[in-house]
């Protein structure tokens, strides 16, 4: 025969458990928000780096073209 024991009358434990659950959820949300923002930043950084590389390449090429042009002009004058 199974004896049913009366349950312990809980006091303020469950309320504290609820507060802890909210605290845990807030920490999880903050961690997820940080991770999500970092992903967005990385994507933007990749795009910007590409733009900077492209800008540098363009400048290098234009500078080289300008240099070639002036040398050609010097040669033409001679």
């Amino acid at each position: 025969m199974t004896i049913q024991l009366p349950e312990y009358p809980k006091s303020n434990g469950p309320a504290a458990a609820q507060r802890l659950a909210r605290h845990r959820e807030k920490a999880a949300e903050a961690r997820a928000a940080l991770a999500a923002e970092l992903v967005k930043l990385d994507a933007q950084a990749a795009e910007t780096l590409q733009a900077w590389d492209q800008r540098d390449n363009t400048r290098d090429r234009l500078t080289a073209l300008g240099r070639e042009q002036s040398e050609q002009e010097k040669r033409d004058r001679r």
Partner: protein
Amino acid sequence: MTKRNINDSRILARQQQYGNREQERAAIEAVDDFIFDKVRFVENMTVESAHRFIDESHAPLTEAESLTAELRELRRDLDYPDRITPHEAGKRYPTLLARVEETQKKLGRVEQESTWLEAKAADPYAHYVAMTDKYNGILRPDLP
């Protein structure tokens, strides 16, 4: 005196022979009250630890909020590459990344600690039974 499992002790009190119903009721109540008082003490300590822990572990959440804003600000600056130099971006990014990693670790620890305390606070009786079973002979009470 034999130190029994708490539930076994409560069952044993109910299986004893008593002179009359009043003696039986009083004996069972004495055992239950004795155990419930012990559980209540542990419950109160757990609740106190829980509130203290919550109050003392807000810093990583505040840091995460400010970091999220700083990450967003750097992203906006990078969206207009004339606003920021590659040198400045190269200085700001690794510093932010290191802070993000550190804060994420701290937040993970807050989650773990909260989960651990939450289980104890939600069911103080189960926590007390588990604790006295684990430390048999040290914590298990000598029943009246």
